[in-house]
């Protein structure tokens, strides 16, 4: 391995190691939470709702829950890891190393991406034991999930860099991210909503992400897949560019 490869592998390993040290909190808790959603909305309520657009309600809900698990974990991991290391001053060790802004940004991003990936894969595997979960369009599903994971990793980095106290991270998650995800159609189809809520849902970017993932699993969508993929790719690229600029300028990282 070259010096640069060792450096990047170490930066990435450190981020993964951080959440693996507190697995009960970082992997166990989100898994339990997802299963509570599946139990309550899928099994309990689902038995009354029967089918949505010809799909069993529990099967309709699970793709959104997998996307939600990946996105929230990617976001939470990166925002809290960066803020915590800024708070302790520990981030100075990476910042005073020969690592470039790009290496630092990618390593921080991939920490949360990995945590989201692990939770999402475990949720998928466990769900497959409970219900017959199809994968209809794997060529849409895999890039969609990876883009969603990377988008929220970037969002977590952005909030973590900008945050000055833990309240800032909690605010972004509780008052912005969680409502957008819940109102994005994880548990329902936007077409069933009365106006103006149906139209308003179309202004929620997470609605398109959920539809992409749901299409990948069960083949049902309410939006254009090509357009949604394009928009998600563009949004992820813009966020990445913003973060790279912040890391290069040392915004709220260097004095």
């Amino acid at each position, binding site marked *: *391995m*070259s*010096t*640069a490869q*060792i*450096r990047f*592998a*170490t*930066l990435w*390993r*450190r981020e993964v*190691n*951080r959440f693996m*040290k*507190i697995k009960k909190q970082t992997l166990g808790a989100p898994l339990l939470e997802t299963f509570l959603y599946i139990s309550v909305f899928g099994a309990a309520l689902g038995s009354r709702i029967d089918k949505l657009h010809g799909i069993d309600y529990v099967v309709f809900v699970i793709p959104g829950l997998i996307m939600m698990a990946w996105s929230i974990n990617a976001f939470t991991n990166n925002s809290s890891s960066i803020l915590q*290391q800024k708070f*302790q*001053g*520990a981030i*100075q*060790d*990476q*910042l*005073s*190393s*020969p*690592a*470039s802004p790009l290496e630092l940004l990618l390593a921080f991003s991939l920490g949360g991406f990995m945590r989201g990936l692990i939770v999402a894969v475990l949720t998928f595997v466990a769900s497959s034991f409970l219900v017959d979960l199809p994968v209809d369009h794997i060529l849409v599903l895999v890039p969609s999930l990876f883009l969603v994971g990377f988008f929220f990793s970037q969002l977590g980095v952005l909030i973590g860099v900008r945050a000055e106290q833990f309240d800032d991270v909690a605010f972004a998650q509780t008052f912005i991210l969680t409502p957008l995800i819940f109102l994005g159609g994880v548990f329902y189809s936007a077409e069933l909503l009365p106006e103006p809520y149906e139209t308003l849902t179309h202004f929620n970017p997470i609605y398109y992400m959920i539809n992409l993932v749901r299409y990948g699993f069960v083949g049902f969508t309410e939006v254009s897949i090509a357009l949604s993929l394009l928009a998600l790719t563009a949004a992820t690229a813009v966020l990445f560019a913003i973060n790279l600029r912040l890391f290069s*300028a*040392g915004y709220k990282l*260097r*004095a």
Partner: protein
Amino acid sequence: MSEPALHIEDLAKRYPTGVEALRGVSLDIVPGELFGLLGPNGAGKSTLIHCTTGLAQPTAGSIEVFGNDAIDDYAEARQAVGLAPQEPNLDWFLTVAETLDYHAGYFGMAKRERRERTDELLETFSLTEKRDERTRTLSGGMKRRLILARALMHRPRLLILDEPTAGVDVELRLELWHYVQKINQEGTTILLTTHYLEEAEQLCDRIAFIAEGQIVARGTSAEVAARFGVSSLEDAYLALVGRKELSRSHAELEVAP
């Protein structure tokens, strides 16, 4: 003639708050030197160190470490620098051994070399028994030792010690100074800030006084003292901060019958 270990020219740093921490600092440290940077709190010592190590962005000026740019194209320069900061900045999640291992990884050291160097430095700094303990469980003195060990992990040619003995007991302070002298004799260039003037006088080849973001005197301790018209570095420092009345020689004269 070899490149200076550290060459700083017209370095300025203005913080977003408007504070001018450095105002045109120029400094050369020759390879193998043990150089002391002294001055009151807020004089600009830590800012100068942060600019050199990439923790602060200079507003103007240039910094070179062994001839390599340390501001824009900084990879080579950073590779040559080890920093032991004033404030303990350890990650509470990591163990003692992980702290050293990760640091070495950032500098591209291969696995076997990292393991051997970690064992060597844990032994040197009497931390072997603590290797698997999380850093938050360490005492203040142990944290200081670990920070110094971390700075040395990648075998830097220029070691920057920002008040390394602040708040440590006498025994550890002497232990650290002995080690610092040893690695200096082995060829490592050292930039040191400290408030222990007598020790700076004994340890350092040359000294610079910094006040209000400017270097106001430099040279051997005798030259710096002469610059202020006094006989010791301590008296020169007191003259610098405008507190000559605290001079021990002044007090001795006053109590003499």
